[in-house]
């Protein structure tokens, strides 16, 4: 077991897959000569050369479209967005071309492409640069959405994503690139649509992913454990397809569910989880499902307002206690 950062884990995944399959290439803003805005592509230009590690102009719609076209004719592009906020410029390409091509071409054109980059808020970047957009991509049929929360999953899931024949939305976190963890030695992949129970518990199921999971939920669960509340913590790892059976089985055991996510409340990923759970676990629920989300406002720039808008440990604890009828 080696200990690596998420940045290194993603780098290894791309390195290994580009070595394994010469159709794989990376393009995006500053991925080549600058070694990536967050240094995820460190050393790849040197290793694979400018034909496979390509610096693009600041033109997301353009290079996303180039990537989709390349995928349609047999290559397996990785398109890096400097952040997912900038993908909104390429939203039409992703939603109307990448996601729909297989269906609208009558099955003729697969689009095996990975769009990846950091999502969510960092610190004081303002409303347009701080968005957790997983729900708007998960909403679109034809897209898969992957959100790793640790180096092991980042590497294993990215390798699987690159090998997948469908467009993948791979959302990282810019404040987590330096976070370290163990990864298995040698070649491994992690299948999409398989979640993980991070901590077994009996009182309440908590579902959370990515940065909020590691920075907020895990800490809240730790404090709840000190209070004697046994939380079963689930990291779905893939937002779509979601590992429903894992969540259902846990809710059937604990009878309570809290969902903690960075995104906004309305039509958020958590809302979808609530819907599936009420449908499949109705007779197992002992309390209404609680959600912790970002406030339903553009994220403020001011530090104090930013902090109070985002999910925090106190709000998670309150939600869990509410689901337990403790408040």
């Amino acid at each position, binding site marked *: 077991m080696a200990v690596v950062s998420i940045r290194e884990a993603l780098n290894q995944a791309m390195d290994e897959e580009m070595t394994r399959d010469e159709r794989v290439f990376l393009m995006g803003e500053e991925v080549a000569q600058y070694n990536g805005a967050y240094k995820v592509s460190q050393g790849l230009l040197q290793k694979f050369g400018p034909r496979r590690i390509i610096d693009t102009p600041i033109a997301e719609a353009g290079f996303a479209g180039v990537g989709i076209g390349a995928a349609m004719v047999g290559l397996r592009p990785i398109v890096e967005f400097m952040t997912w906020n900038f993908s909104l410029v390429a939203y039409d390409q992703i939603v109307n071309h990448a996601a729909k091509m297989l269906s609208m071409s009558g099955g003729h054109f697969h689009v095996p492409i990975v769009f990846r980059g950091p999502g969510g808020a960092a610190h004081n970047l303002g409303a347009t640069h701080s968005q957790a957009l997983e729900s708007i991509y998960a909403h679109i049929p034809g897209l898969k959405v992957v959100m790793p929360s640790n180096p092991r999953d980042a590497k294993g899931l990215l390798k699987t994503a690159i090998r997948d024949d469908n467009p993948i939305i791979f959302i990282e976190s810019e404040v987590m690139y330096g976070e370290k963890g163990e990864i298995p030695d040698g070649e491994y992949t992690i299948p999409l649509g398989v979640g993980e129970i991070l901590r077994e518990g009996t009182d309440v199921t908590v579902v959370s992913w990515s940065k909020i999971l590691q920075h907020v939920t895990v800490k809240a669960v730790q404090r709840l454990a000190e209070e004697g509340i046994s939380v079963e913590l689930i990291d779905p790892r893939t937002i779509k397809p979601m590992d429903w059976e894992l969540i259902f089985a846990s809710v059937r055991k604990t009878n309570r569910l809290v969902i903690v996510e960075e995104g906004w409340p309305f039509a958020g990923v958590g809302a979808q989880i609530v819907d599936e759970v009420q449908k499949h676990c109705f*007779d*197992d629920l*002992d*309390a209404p499902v609680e959600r912790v989300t970002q406030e339903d406002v553009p994220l403020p720039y001011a530090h104090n307002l930013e902090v109070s808008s985002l999910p925090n440990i106190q709000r998670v604890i309150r939600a869990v206690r509410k689901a337990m009828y403790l408040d």
Partner: protein
Amino acid sequence: MATKILMPKLSDTMTEGLILKWLKAEGEKVKQGEILVEIESDKADMELEAYDSGLLRKIIVSQGGKAPIGAPIAVIAAADEDISALLTDVPPPGASKPQPATSPAAQAPAPATAPAALSVTPSPVVETGKAKASPLARRLAEENRIDLRRISGSGPQGRVIKRDLEPLISGKVPAAPVSATVPTGETKDVELSLIRKTIARRMQESKQTAPHFYVTMDVDMEPAMAFREQLNAVSAVKLSFTDLLVKACAATLLKHPNVNATYLGDRMRQFGEANIAVAVALEDGLVTPVLRNCERKGLFQINTELRDLVERARNRRLKAEEYQGATFTISNLGMFGVEDFVAIINPPEGAILAVGAILEAPVVRNGQIVVGHHMKMTLSSDHRIIDGAVAARFLQELKATLERPAQLLL
């Protein structure tokens, strides 16, 4: 024109009605005034007439089904009329949503002689009869045959949740061996009839809102017995003690307006008439048919009317106005040998008289101990409008009247 038949409001306290029987089938012709359906309210079984002629196009609530007041139960229309628009807001079969108690009951027969008191009857709280429980608690209750309505929930607004059931479920022990010689009854949950639910709600409401107090008085019944015997000896109509009581109460009530009254928050309404209800036991409850204007009726008229009312009450054939609008109630358990008891006020009335049996007892008369007959009566009063002395004076006068019964003929 197509018309919706709505569940009528058949009593003051009715919130929903049960369809006992449709006398017309779907597709059958209906003439205005014909009996369409029999409905069980919380008080009685009633027949509902058709208000329009046409075809009974659609029965929305079928026999055995329940509907809240004002909910459509059928549609009458011409044969070729499109009634789909009338059916769009019909709840799915089996749905029995409670209506606000103030919902209009357009087709309810208005009680012709209902006194103003009716309009001030406190709106009954709408009860769904359904316990508030989490889906899990509901499932556990069903699996373990627990009646959720008997559990007090610890969740918000009394929601029954898993932890409320756990002691009951885990506390289950295998049944101890039962002695073969002792027959053991079956424990079962019996759904309450509408009338039972109404009694439960109204008695609870009465005991919780009206501060009751009780005054008991003993009446020498020798004169009343002799009086009744004399009259019955010469009359074809045989008077009962209840007839005498009703008449005596009517006469007394008008002289004690606070007792013949109802509490209205910032004022009380004193009634100018003595509308006396008499409690009649039924198999699954009781009804209180009302004899109106007893102050104007003679003993024999009271006898005739009361006999008819009681009989129809037992057959559950009272009309709405016949069990509404009482200003005072008499409850008599004398026939069971009960010496005395206290009754719960029948809201919105101010008082109720509980009457025991006429019993033999030694009495001192002219310095001698002889066997006499006496009867105990207890007045339950709403202390918000009736004070102890008022109740005592009422009973004092009632006693005096019963002990000099000739004045009942005046």
